[in-house]
C-alpha cells in the first residue's frame, strides 16, 4: 500500500468514524427525551461527575488565579496600571481560562472515567445484559451521563473562575499590595455580563457537549477488550482536548466579530 492509499484509507476511516459519532449523538439526543421520567439518574450523574472533578477544579482554579495575579501585576505595574489587575484576572478567567482549563481538566478526569466506565460495562456484557432485559442502554446509561456532563461543565467552569478570581485577589491585594477597593471596582465596571460572562458560559456549555459526547461515544464504541478500553480512554482525553482548543479559537473569533 503506497502513501496515497494509506492517506485515503485514513481519511475514509476518520470520516466513517465521524459519521458514526454523529449518528450516536443523534441517538443520545433522542434518548434524552426519556429522562423526564428518570431525572434522578441525571442528578446522580451530575453529583458523580461534579464531585469527581470538583477538587481538581478548585485547586487548579486557585493556582491559576495566583499565577494570573503575579504575572498580571508584574506586567501592569510597568505601565502604572496595577489597579486594573482585578479586571485582567476576571476577564482572563471568564472569557478564556475558566471554560478552557475546566474543559481540559474535565476531559482528563471525568471524560476518561466516563469512557472507561462505559467501555468496561460493554466488556463485561453489562450493556448486552441490559438490552436483553429490554432496557435501552442509551436511555439508562448514556443519556443521563451525557446530560449530566453538559450540566456539570458550566457549573465547574463558574467555580473555577470564582476561585481563580479569589486566587488573583489573594496574590494581588494580599501579597503585592494592590488596593482591594480598586481591584473589585475595576472588575465590576469592566466585566460585561453579556460579552464576557455569558460568552464564557456559552463556551463552557459547548465544551461540555463536546467532551461528554466524545467520552460516551468512545466508551460505547470501544473494543470489548482491556486494550480497547485503554485505547478509548486515551483517545477521549486526546480528542476532546484538541477539540476544546480548536473550538475555543473558532468561538473566540466568532465572538470577537460580534463585539
Amino acid at each position, binding site marked *: 500500500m503506497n502513501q496515497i492509499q494509506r492517506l485515503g484509507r485514513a481519511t475514509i476511516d476518520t470520516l466513517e468514524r465521524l459519521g458514526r459519532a454523529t449518528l450516536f449523538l443523534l441517538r443520545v439526543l433522542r434518548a434524552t427525551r426519556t429522562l423526564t421520567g428518570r431525572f434522578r439518574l441525571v442528578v446522580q450523574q451530575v453529583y458523580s461527575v461534579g464531585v469527581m472533578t470538583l477538587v481538581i477544579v478548585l485547586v487548579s482554579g486557585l493556582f491559576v488565579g495566583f499565577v494570573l495575579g503575579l504575572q498580571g501585576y508584574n506586567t501592569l505595574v510597568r505601565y502604572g496600571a496595577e489597579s486594573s489587575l482585578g479586571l485582567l484576572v476576571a476577564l482572563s478567567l471568564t472569557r478564556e481560562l475558566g471554560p478552557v482549563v475546566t474543559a481540559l481538566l474535565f476531559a482528563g478526569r471525568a471524560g476518561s472515567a466516563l469512557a472507561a466506565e462505559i467501555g468496561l460495562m460493554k466488556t463485561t456484557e453489562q450493556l448486552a445484559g441490559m438490552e436483553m432485559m429490554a432496557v*435501552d442502554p442509551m436511555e439508562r446509561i448514556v443519556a443521563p451521563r451525557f446530560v449530566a456532563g453538559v450540566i456539570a461543565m458550566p457549573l465547574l467552569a463558574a467555580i473555577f473562575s470564582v476561585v481563580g478570581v479569589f486566587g488573583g485577589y489573594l496574590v494581588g491585594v494580599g501579597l503585592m499590595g494592590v488596593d482591594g477597593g480598586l481591584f473589585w471596582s475595576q472588575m465590576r465596571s469592566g466585566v460585561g455580563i453579556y460579552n464576557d460572562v455569558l460568552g464564557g458560559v456559552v463556551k463552557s456549555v459547548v465544551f461540555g457537549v463536546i467532551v461528554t459526547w466524545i467520552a460516551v461515544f468512545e466508551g460505547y464504541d470501544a473494543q470489548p477488550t482491556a486494550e480497547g478500553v485503554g485505547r478509548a480512554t486515551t483517545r477521549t482525553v486526546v480528542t476532546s482536548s484538541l477539540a476544546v482548543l480548536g473550538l475555543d479559537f473558532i468561538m473566540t473569533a466568532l465572538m470577537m466579530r460580534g463585539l
Partner: protein
Amino acid sequence: MIRVGANTDKQRETRSVVHGTVYHQQEILIAAASSAIGVPGARRVDPYAVLPYNGPPCKKYMTCKGKGPVPVLEPKKPLVEIRNVSFHRGERTIFEDLNLTIARGKITTIMGGSGIGKTTLLNLIGGRLAPDRGNVIVEGLDVVTLRRHALYRLRRRMGMLFQSGALFTDLSVFENVAFPLREHTALPERMIRLLVLMKLELVGLRGARELLPNELSGGMARRAALARAIVLDPIVVMYDEPFAGLDPISMGVIVRLIRDLNDTLGMTSIIVTHDVAEACSISDYMYLLGDGHVLSEGTPEDIRKSDMPSVRQFVGGLPDGPVSYHYPAADYFEDLRGPGG
C-alpha cells in the same frame, strides 16, 4: 385466569372486571409469588400475559410503552423456530441455512465446539443480531422484522444468563435482581422486596443480598444473575455456557437449579454449552452444531448412540476426526525448517 389465594368476601369486593376477566390485585401478587416459589397447585402466572398485553390494566402496575404485535401463547407450537437462517461475520460463514426448533417447556441444549456460533445463535433469538437471511420466530413473532418497541416487549418475556453473569458492578445483589422490576413495573417497594427475596431464596443467595458482585464467587455470581434473569417470570431463559469455569459443587448446583426452575416455573430453557456430560444429564433435547448447520439432533440418548463421526468425535472428546484439532497451517516440518532451511 388466576385462581390462587383465599377468596374471601373482602377480596371479592375489591375485585375489578377487566376485559371480561375478574382480577384482584392481591390475587395477581399472590399468584406471582406462589408460582415463583413453586407452591403446589399454584398456576403459573406471567404478569405480562395478565397485564400489559391485554391493554388498559397495565396502567398502574406495569409500564406499557409502544405498540406492536402482541405475543399470543400457543401451547402446541414450538416456542422458537429458526428457519433457513444464514449469518456471516465478514467473509466467515457462521450459519448457512440453519433450521432448528425449541420445544415449549423443555430444556434444549445447543452444543458445538468453540467459535461455531452458539452464543451468536442466542443473540439471534434475542434479536441482538439480525441474520443475513432467514427467520427467527419466537412466540409466533418474527424477531427480525419486529420494531424496537415490540422487540423490547418480547424481551421482557425472555431471560438470559450470560457467561460472565453480566451483573451490574455498582449495584448489590438485591438491586441487581430488582433492576428489571424497577425498570418495567411500578410495583410498590414492599412487593419488589418480596419478589426479589423469593428469587434469591430459589438460588440460595437470600443471605448474600447486600453483597456487591465483586464479593461473589463465580458460581454465586452466576446464581445471582440467574435470579435476575427469572425475576420477571420469563417464558424462556437462555443460558450462555452456564457450566464454564465452575467448580464441581457450583456446577452441580447450577445443573439442578436449571432443571428445577424449568420444571417448577414452567419455563422453556435453551442452554448453549460444550460440556457434554452436564448437557446430557439435564437436557430433554439436544442439537449439535458444526459447519454452520445442525450436525445431529435428538434426545441425549440419541446423541450418545449416534454413529456419525463428527458426533462421536465431539461426544468422546477425540482429537482426530472430521473436526481438525489444528488450525489450517503449512506442513509442520517445512515450517520448522523455516524459509530457505
